[in-house]
């Protein structure tokens, strides 16, 4: 078993050994469930679009909450010293934590499949392609938020600070889409490309475009790389 996998396993276990993960999951599912179920009865229409609209917003809080401790806590209690003196690479530490947080996100999303089942039972003319693409989008979105959260967590030994930093970065990427109107028109195209919602909405419409995938992929790689650099940088301080 390689070190990345060992660390990912350890983090997964530690998530489910503490009540925090369960609380966060329950809160996530309650909010997602509420926003899915209420229009179902009000509009008398069964669709998953409401879910795909609300989950990215819940993720703004949910993902930083599950990533904030990943490195900050190790720094705080000093276990990072132990971890860094094991014969493993910083990138393996970061990747292990990344897969673990993505795993927890996947568990959360897995439970929302209940809503998918509801749709299958109640709905007509279901666009399966769009739903699968939507879920792919949510996973990618979670991966981007995770990498940002891990980067924020690597910067500090304070979990609250890590939460706030990752929240701010994610919020900035999220809000860009809605603030384009204040920008001069020649810039708006560029900032639209930077905004996360623009790429996500393409996916929920059932369109898999390489431009969107490249956007998500490069953000993930960028922030994970930053995290590795932050960890390595500590050695030279």
């Amino acid at each position: 078993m390689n070190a990345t996998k060992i660390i990912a396993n350890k983090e997964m276990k530690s998530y489910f050994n503490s009540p925090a993960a369960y609380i966060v999951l329950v809160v996530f599912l309650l909010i997602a469930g509420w926003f899915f179920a209420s229009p179902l009865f009000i509009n008398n229409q069964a669709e998953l679009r409401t879910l795909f609209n609300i989950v990215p917003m819940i993720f703004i809080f949910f993902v930083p909450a599950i990533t904030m401790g990943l490195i900050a806590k190790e720094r705080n209690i000093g276990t990072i010293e132990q971890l860094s003196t094991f014969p493993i690479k910083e990138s393996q530490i970061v990747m292990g934590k990344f897969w673990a947080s993505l795993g927890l996100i996947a568990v959360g999303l897995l439970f929302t499949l209940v809503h998918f089942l509801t749709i299958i039972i109640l709905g007509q003319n279901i666009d399966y392609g769009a739903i699968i693409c939507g879920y792919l989008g949510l996973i990618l979105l979670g991966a981007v938020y995770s990498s940002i959260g891990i980067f924020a967590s690597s910067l500090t030994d304070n979990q609250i600070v890590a939460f706030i930093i990752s929240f701010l970065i994610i919020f900035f990427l999220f809000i860009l889409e809605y603030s384009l109107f204040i920008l001069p028109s020649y810039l708006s195209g560029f900032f639209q490309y930077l905004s996360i919602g623009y790429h996500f909405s393409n996916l929920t419409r059932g369109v898999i475009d390489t431009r969107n995938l490249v956007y998500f992929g490069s953000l993930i790689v960028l922030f994970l790389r930053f995290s590795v650099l932050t960890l390595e940088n500590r050695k030279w301080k």
Partner: protein
Amino acid sequence: MIQLQNLVKDYGNLRAVDHINFEINEGEILGFLGPNGAGKSTTLKMITCFLTPTAGNITVEDRNVYDNSKEIREMIGYLPETNPLYTDMTVYDYLKFVADIRKISNFKQRLKEVTDKCGLHGVVSKPIGTLSKGYRQRVGLAQAIIHDPKILILDEPTTGLDPNQIVEIRQLIKELGKEKTLIMSSHILQEVQAVCDRIVIINKGKIVADGSTQQLQNNFQNKNKLVLEIMATKDELGSLADAVEGVELLSLEPVTAHINKAVLEYSVEQDKRKEIYEFIKQQEWVLLEMKRESMSLEAVFRNLTIEEGGQA
């Protein structure tokens, strides 16, 4: 086995380690001694590849920390000063985690050996968070030796333990030192004296002494002190130093009306106790106490670290 060459570490403007040179031979138990903030931990952190030196070099079996850091980390077992542990894991899970990361194939056998050695029976399935400090230190040690490393680096392994636990952990360290090259840092002199073959004293980032316990004591001690309590007057006692050749009277003070206390000094080469006793007998004084005071390592340590401090 381990060589430190002109090792320097700066934290911003602060020079924590200042051109350190020394070598540790295979099988040696080295005590790394110094007051708090002397640079002990920083040096150990550089050997374990947690920190990168600002300048200079460290080689472990001809591998240096810049290019072969991973191989060095494989060879070393390390117990950091704060003994950081994942408190939510059980001892078993934690040791399994470390063993997996260190790629140990015969985990079951190693676990048994390590629990035997560190006295962890009965707590293996308990969460680390519920253990006492002494047991946590054992877990820290178990973690450091699970891969049977050639080199063991322990940073202040007994801080914060109660006297009984300290004795136990020292015993354990001594035991481990029989088969490994061991570096142990401490600011407590008796500890290093009790456990180590060789002592390196560091102060303000510089090495101020290096040698075996005996050597250090000899180097810094050229006078023996003798404390006497005798039933005689001050004047009478004063004549003692004149009467015996090569003896100097350091101090003379009354204990009670009839008893006086004298401190005499003579060089280590010549034992003057016989002459002094014979003189006392000849004077028919009542000798109540006669005690030799050798300059302890404690005093050597204090001299070295305080002198150096004064110069800076």
